[in-house]
């Protein structure tokens, strides 16, 4: 039984439409922000899929962004693969790493899951920041973007690249929208609510968790490849646990377990960052305080709160509709 969200469509149209329009008409400064927002939205959606739907609270998802970025960097820069193929391989590497690591980490739960995902992602970070091939913690520049001139698209044009990223984010949104409504997504929600009930129905709970982890890892790796395409620079920072924490911030602030939430959260996070940064160097203190205030006052997130407000108002007219 799906709930209808009267807010979802207008908000999404506003956010994605706004990004798209900004991508079309804005100047160079805002183009970089639109690109960053689009890429981080993809990453945040994958985190929300794990945290909000599968109930797997990861504090290390940036590690998979790193896997995507480093795989792409290696294959396109050193192995001489075409960039497009390397991106696909990067996504595949993310999925593979997701299956392997998901299989390990889903053995523990709760706060131990938070810790072990943190540890595993930082293992990747530690390797990347000491890897001589990739310039250790200085990173390595000189990466190429995908060449689509054959079909008339020049990705080296910032405007074109921004719009491609926005479209990619919208497609990933649709992917998750479809996924959480599929039987697979429904079972994940069931596991989040009551793992034992699903197990009692004879379903392999751990396999479902691993599958969810792999999907989210593949999408995060895709975000990582886009990040590398954007910056043309591979740097271990992409996999640092602070990035994982930031993704949790945008998911929780926007509203975990709603796909609209991470989009709102990412949008606000970047816009807030840029706006406050233009007034003061110390944007982090304000971001931190605002974040704490939101978590304390609206733990269901901005979109979750909006939705419950509109639903309360609509409730009398929908007689006895079960909230499930």
């Amino acid at each position, binding site marked *: 039984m799906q709930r209808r969200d009267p807010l979802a469509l207008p908000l999404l149209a506003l956010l994605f439409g706004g990004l798209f329009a900004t991508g079309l008409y804005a100047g160079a400064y805002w183009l970089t922000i639109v690109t960053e927002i689009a890429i981080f939205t993809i990453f945040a959606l994958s985190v929300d899929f794990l945290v909000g739907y599968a109930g797997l609270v990861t504090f290390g998802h940036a590690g998979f962004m790193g896997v995507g970025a480093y795989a792409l960097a290696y294959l396109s820069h050193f192995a001489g693969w075409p960039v497009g193929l390397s991106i696909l391989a990067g996504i595949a590497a993310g999925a593979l790493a997701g299956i392997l690591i998901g299989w*390990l*980490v889903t053995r523990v739960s709760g*706060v131990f899951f938070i810790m072990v995902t943190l540890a595993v992602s930082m293992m990747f970070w*530690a390797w990347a920041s000491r890897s001589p091939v990739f310039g250790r913690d200085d990173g390595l520049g000189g990466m190429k973007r995908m060449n689509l001139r054959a079909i008339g698209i020049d990705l080296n044009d910032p405007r074109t690249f921004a719009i491609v990223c926005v479209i990619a984010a919208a497609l990933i949104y649709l992917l998750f929208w479809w996924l959480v409504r599929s039987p697979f997504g429904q079972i994940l929600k069931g596991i989040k609510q009551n793992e034992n009930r699903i197990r009692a129905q004879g379903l392999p709970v751990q396999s479902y968790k691993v599958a969810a982890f792999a999907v989210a890892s593949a999408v995060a790796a895709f975000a990582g490849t886009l990040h590398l395409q954007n910056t043309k620079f591979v740097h271990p920072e992409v996999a640092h646990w602070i990035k994982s924490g930031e993704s949790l911030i945008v998911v929780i602030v926007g509203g975990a377990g709603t796909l609209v939430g991470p989009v709102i959260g990412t949008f606000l996070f970047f816009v807030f960052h840029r706006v406050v940064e233009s007034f003061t160097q110390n944007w982090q203190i304000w971001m931190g305080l605002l974040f*704490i205030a939101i978590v304390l006052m609206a733990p269901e997130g901005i979109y979750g709160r909006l939705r419950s407000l509109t639903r309360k108002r609509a409730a009398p007219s929908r007689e006895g509709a079960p909230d499930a």
Partner: protein
Amino acid sequence: MELFNFIGIQVLNALWLSALLFMLAVGLSVEFGLLDVLNLAHCTLYMLGAYIGYTVAQIAGSYWVALVVAPIAVTIIGALLYWGLLSRLRGNHLIQALITFGLLFVGYDATRLIWGVEQFRMAVPDLLSATVPVFDQTYPIYRFFVLGVGLLTVLCLYLGLERTRLGAVVRAGVDDREMAATLGINIDRAFFTVFCIGTALAGIAGVLAAPIRSVEPGMDVEILIPALVVVVIGGPGSLKGAVLGAVLIGTAETFGPVLVPDFASFIMYALMALVLLLRPQGLLPVKPAH
């Protein structure tokens, strides 16, 4: 002989680092194991200890004043934090992790606002500024002092836990919180005291570290992960576990960069992941596995 001297020096380095890690981790561990609070901002208090200690030492001209004043100031800040925020979030680890993660950002920028972005290094007190010859080298006495404070802390905590009424309450609370509360023990007050002790230790660790490690924004995040690893490896809430974890990580962090420079920090994370997967309750857990 050269090899022996080399190893000797590294062992000394490992020991003082272990002592420092212990002072930090034991607070984190007890917050997590006993109070059920995952406080990522614990190391922000350590950083504040270092900064406040530096400033106090500048004004008062004495390291020893700083070593007393800074931990008290840090404890007050920690107590306010506990009373205002953390005690209200007990039991919800995700929210705790997120809120204290937000506090990391606040702490980072607050120190930048107050002290700027420069690196400081506190002066070693005159009494301890000498060096002693060991293993064919000169070794600063100050590092022995850090080690000594660490050992003293272990001893005090052990005696406090085993011999005092508060220690008995704490042990009862770790074992079965509801049962202890049912028996009429004021668990909340005991928890608050324990939190303050952990915070004070973080403040002391900050002052101890200030002459050895540079005092700068971000020094908290740098040591947060090793401290968390110590807690996880040893077993949350376990004093012996914190000692074992601190020695293991202190050793890995000292010998790692010398022996396998490219895998040094890798070792720590791998150890943590291994322990979590094979023995999630830690190496020396408080409660035996059922």
